[in-house]
């Protein structure tokens, strides 16, 4: 058992180091969000910059150890310290909370539609050999193959024909249909790993086909449902390009649109842009954490006689 202990420690260390390396670029963004000078780049590896007091006995505008400094407000502290100024500005002076609300509504509807349609359609593809099945599966995949930039203009023409510009319906329809192919394929793949004998025994116990799906298979597929919902959520949560052509009224903006409004060519509000990006990723992390306990399936092979 000693070997297993050592192995676990090595594993843990490896994963910790890997995680830190993974989140370093994100820390970088956090660092930018806390800077006071609205600049995007730092020149050291450190994330938090202290407002360090300095000594400059000979008044040559250089720290006595040689580094130069800026102290505009003459408070004896180096100016490029860290602060939460951008966050305050973000919440108090912009429509950030409104964008969050809009985004939550849109993503929520897309997630629900994604999960409902994908869990049923995936089941049909996994369990039935119906006519047009192969064609349907390829068609789903095919829809993902267009370069997105080419779809924008036709999308716009289509939606303005139906009067759906500046409405969430247009957005939800497009998001759902772009997220669905993956969700359906994913659900189908997962159903494929569940032995059909499970339903067969359920049907012997008197379930209808629909009941067998609803009561037996669906609960067994919770890991796939988690992934599907997470994916649908993400597809709408951070999508920008389609939203930009559909939503024109700032009051209806979703988060990515709001976020991008801090960006301008050659003059970006880096502090707020980064702060908003950080805040945007928090709900995703929360969602993942709260969903991850369903990432464990109830599937046990032993319960079914092969």
């Amino acid at each position, binding site marked *: 058992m000693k070997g297993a202990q050592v192995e676990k420690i090595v594993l843990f260390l490896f994963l910790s180091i890997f995680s830190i390396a993974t989140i370093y670029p994100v820390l970088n963004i956090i660092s930018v969000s806390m800077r006071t000078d609205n600049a995007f780049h730092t020149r050291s590896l450190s994330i938090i910059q202290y407002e360090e007091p300095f000594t400059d006995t000979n008044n040559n505008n250089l720290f006595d150890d040689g580094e130069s400094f800026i102290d505009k407000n003459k408070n004896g502290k180096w100016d490029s310290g860290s602060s939460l100024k951008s966050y305050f500005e973000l919440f108090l002076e912009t429509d950030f909370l409104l964008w969050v609300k809009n985004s939550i509504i849109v993503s929520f509807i897309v997630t629900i539609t994604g999960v409902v349609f994908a869990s049923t*359609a995936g089941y049909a593809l996994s369990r039935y050999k119906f006519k047009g099945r192969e064609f349907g599966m390829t068609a789903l995949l095919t829809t993902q193959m267009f370069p997105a930039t080419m779809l924008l203009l036709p999308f716009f023409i289509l939606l303005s024909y139906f009067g759906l510009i500046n409405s969430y319906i247009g957005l939800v329809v497009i998001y759902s249909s772009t997220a669905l192919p993956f969700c359906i394929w994913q659900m189908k793949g997962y159903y494929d790993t569940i032995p059909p004998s499970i339903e067969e025994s359920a049907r012997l116990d008197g379930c209808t086909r629909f009941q067998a799906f609803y009561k037996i298979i669906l609960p067994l597929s919770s890991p796939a449902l988690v992934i599907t919902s997470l994916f649908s959520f993400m597809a709408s949560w951070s999508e920008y390009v389609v939203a930009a052509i559909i939503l024109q009224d700032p009051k209806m903006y979703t988060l990515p649109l709001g976020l991008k409004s801090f960006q301008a060519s050659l003059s970006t509000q880096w502090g707020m842009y980064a702060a908003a990006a950080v805040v945007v990723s928090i709900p995703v992390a929360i969602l993942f954490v709260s969903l991850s306990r369903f990432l464990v399936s109830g599937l046990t092979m032993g319960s079914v006689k092969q």
Partner: protein
Amino acid sequence: MYTYLKKIVLLFIVSPFLLADSITTINIWHQMLYENRKVLRDVCDKYEKNNPEININLTYRETEELRSSYQAAAMGGSGPELIYGPSDQVGPFSVMGIIQPLDKLFSKKYFNQFVENAVVRSMGKVWMVGDVVGNHLMLIYNKDLVRYPPKNTNELIRIGKELTLDINGNGKIDQYGLVWNFTEPFFYVPWLGGFGEWLLTENETPNLNTKGNKKGFRFIKSLRDEHKIIPKECDYEIANAMFKTGRAAMIINGDWSWGDYQGVVDFGIARIPKVSETGLWPSPLVSTKGYSINANIKGSQLDQTIKLMKHLTSEEIQLYFTTKLNSQPSSKDALNSSIVKNNKLLKESSHIIEVGRPMPIIPEMRAIWDALRDQYQAVLGGTVSAQDAAKKAQENALKQIKVMNEKIEPGIQGNIIKIIIFALIFGLIFIIGKQVPDFISDYKKNKIAYIFFAPALLAIAAVIIFPFVYNIVISLSNYSLRTFNDWDIIGLYHYIKVFGDSNFYLVLIKTFIWTALNIIFHVSIGIFLAVLINQTLPAKPIIRTLLIIPWAIPQYIAALSWRGMFNQEYGAINIALVKYFNLPAVEWLSQPFEAFTACILTNIWLGFPFMMVIALGGLQSIPQDLYEAARVDGANRWQQFKSITLPLLKPVMLPAIVLGTVWTFNNINVMWLVSNGGEPSNQTHILVSFVYKAAFNLYRYGYAAALSMIIFLILFGLVSYFIKRTRATEGVY
């Protein structure tokens, strides 16, 4: 629940119509900087108060996006009443006919209020009235470090050398004399004037193969390599950050940056130093920004729009902007007011504008910028001599302009294609019609399957079929800048063109490499990590959450953050390489191979969490007793992984791999943002970014559509083959 959802849905349909009716809404799309937007909103609020029947909506878009989304909207017959932007957008908009001429809408007296520059003319008509003049480059210096700005380039080099310092003596430069976004042609062209030449001839044709241009190329290169007063790699953001933190004594930047520096750096402004060799001042481009009216606006809506536009360009409002933001007004009366006369910055700024040149507004400028950018960056990268680059830039610019203005007349081929299309449509309907009875009989057998699958398929089809057909039609047409309003089917012209372009094959190969490497790393890292964190470990939830963060952060900002990390001198990656691994610093962003690698690294980072989550889900479907049985049989870990984990992960991973391939193949974001649109010299491209750059930049919609169809067909072939080989659509049972 259902009724509740219905209510929400209804609310969304109705809400846009709740406003309106007796109130006239005027939409303005603009690209104003963050601080300016607040002032504009302020001005519009006051206007609404005085005119209760008017409601003004302001929509911000970044300059390039403003252009493309306005084009899309105006083509679709809608769009905002007013569009505010830089004067060079007048070129394409007026040619396309999506803004209206202003001559008849306003009086002569109105136009006479403004300085000549601010009334933007093209093809003999007025299309835009500007409210600010400027947008010009200048030398901005940190007063703490530079007492008097250099007057000429010799002084610039001398002062620059004095201020380029390795303060702590570690062999690395800590402070540069001069920084600026020197690799971008807009930031280079003032020097053309300094060397006695200009971008365009008097007939507005490109004029790049000149002595002055060659000297200019060499001059910038010498600042970097010989005098070493500017950093090796320096884009706009790096330059800006360095200047703001006192790491650079001088910067060449535009008037828009003043607001950003105020309160951060004690700065002064001056003309870009005179070129000592010629005795001429470099000439920055001066442009105006202003309002144009959408061509689709008529009647009383138009009257209200004109009234608002008059107000927004009035002396009073211009002066309000000046007091708030130091903007240089375009109204003659405003220029004579004490507010402007007593403004020190504006006084110096108009002194700088005197040596400037107006920004050309012809649509062909795009082609000229592109050609210049390519060759200029190649000179800086050391792959071409200044002599050849100038010649090549001129040739390419002429070639591009020819392509851009190409107008192919529909001929006999177009008619044949039209007939074939109709025949195909009828054939398709016929085939589908024949299948209907089969479907009906099959439906009776597999009712649930149809009920389950049909809604999803229909929803997707509704969204995708129209764009698909639209694309095919456009790809066969001569749709471009010059045929914006009267395009027609011409046949397979664009397809032939694509296949005849050697660049296409090169980019295709790069796309394959890009896709393959990304998928291989995404999947292997994903599965590897999933297997590791699937075991019982301390702090497992935390590690698991940290590892999905790259997926959670919006791609566009993550990509920009990575771009910063790849900087040659200040990026985290090189700092780590040099400090901890004792390796030489890599020029990630200015060499083609390294830039491509940088993009791949970024995308690997962005993509593995997704695969990890899928694999984590998939691992749950593998019964533990299989492993136990294998252990009893004496299988080691690797054997267990190979013969249990991998085969059972297959049905879950394959869909993700297939779709991942498709998405990676078409992922424009990372490529575009990390390489800043294909830099260096347009060599960092995959097919989608190539479409975007090569075609949209030059308004070649037909060509772009054809290329997109080809991308689609390549992907389709690739994926079909893959599915056939792996039998991805079939389950394990």
